[in-house]
């Protein structure tokens, strides 16, 4: 093989690549934030006394978890306008990823809720806390800590899914990589640089989350 690597035409475009990865991170953060709030509601609904709420929660989870994220993205962006709801591409992608994330986060939080021992709820009841305060001061803080490792895995996964936004021309890293690819034909170099950026970013997220886990996850008493 005598391929001559030439990274110069790609590195000239570094502002584009950086803005691409920046937008990807932003999309992930916003979607995960929305997805987490939704997921938390679904997680509580999945354990609600009302059987109606419970089946609603499980339906929500099973529909969204059994759809490929790309299908959700394309459906929302190309399908919804037919139904009279046009969203710009970024909003449309955020909605898609948030919905998708909500199902995974619901599972993460549901596991976290199951990990809170009933004895701690009873200890809160015994000192006279109302159930709302038990949730706020006991169940939620413990749930978040126990859910953190699973949350981190999903965070990385969802961040990588932002590359699918390229299919609806959201200008994130994969979109720019494809653009530079077609302009420079430095195929290997472009995708090597893009891969490297993804890896560095994911690894940085892993490190941050691991540091948080170290501080927050509870040792077994």
């Amino acid at each position, binding site marked *: 093989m005598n391929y001559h690597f030439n990274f110069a035409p790609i590195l000239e475009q570094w502002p584009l690549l950086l803005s691409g990865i920046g937008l990807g991170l932003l999309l992930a953060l916003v979607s995960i934030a929305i997805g987490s709030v939704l997921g938390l509601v679904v997680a509580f609904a999945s354990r609600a006394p009302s059987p109606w709420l419970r089946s609603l929660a499980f339906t929500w989870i099973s529909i969204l978890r059994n759809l490929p994220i790309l299908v959700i993205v394309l459906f929302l962006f190309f399908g919804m306008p037919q139904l009279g709801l046009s969203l710009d591409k970024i909003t449309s992608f955020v909605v898609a990823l948030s919905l998708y994330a909500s199902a995974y986060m619901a599972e993460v939080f549901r596991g976290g809720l199951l990990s809170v*021992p009933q*004895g*701690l709820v*009873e*200890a*809160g*009841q*015994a*000192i*006279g*806390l*109302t*159930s709302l*305060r038990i949730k706020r*001061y*006991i169940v939620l*803080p*413990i749930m978040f*800590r126990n859910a953190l490792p699973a949350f981190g895995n999903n965070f990385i996964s969802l961040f990588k899914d932002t590359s699918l936004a390229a299919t609806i021309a959201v200008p994130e890293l994969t979109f720019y990589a494809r653009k530079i690819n077609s302009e420079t034909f430095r195929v290997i170099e472009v995708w090597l640089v893009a891969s490297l950026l993804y890896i560095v970013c994911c690894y940085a997220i892993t490190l941050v989350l691991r540091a948080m886990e170290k501080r927050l996850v*509870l*040792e*077994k*008493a």
Partner: protein
Amino acid sequence: MTPIVEVRDLHKRFGELEVLKGIDFTVAEGEVVSIIGASGSGKTTLLRCLNLLEEFHRGDVLIGGEAIGYHLRRGQRVRIGEREVARQRAMTGMVFQAFNLFPHMSALDNVTLGLTKVRGMPRPQAIELADHWLDRVGMLERRDHRPSQLSGGQQQRVAIARAIAMSPKVMLFDEATSALDPERVGEVLETIRSLAQEGMTMVLVTHEMRFARDVSDKVVFMEDGRIAEQGPPQRLFLNPESPRLQAFLKTSSF
């Protein structure tokens, strides 16, 4: 004088299984009552009815003269609202077999949580009171430790401080030493004993027969969801009347 705890004709079912079949007993102010009996006799369930951790199906529980958990509406027995249940639960303090300290909080915060959120105490005042009780159970030096950094005996002593700092009318102990390593049992029993000597009203479910004999004013022996025998410890332990208690004491270690 109004008893601190009064239980009248208490019945409790788990599904079809009746676990309490008509319980009557009282606890006077300053009295220490031990409930003994074999596993499955209903003693823990009875204790948990006293702070509404269990629902019951018939009869009354009165704490300080107030009927808890239920009221009559047009002749129907109805469970009271959640806020009322929470308020009534705070009239009792409970110490659990598994300690159940909040693992994400320091020993101090375990004690102050109820003081600030239930009693509405300002934080500085809550800390002062928590420090007093942590000192009282010998845990002041470790007030900033998390439960995972404490031994079982230490955790249980913090749990006792957490319950008693709320100034309950009565303290309920649910097999408070059963989950401890043998060498840790003594320190917790000592703490309970000194609180008893100060006049704290207590109901203890226990397997520690010697402790029940030495500390209690009254012992209640339960058998199959009923009280088979109750009275002063000297009489129950030295001259048990019912054959079942005689048999139970023979198999219990002192």
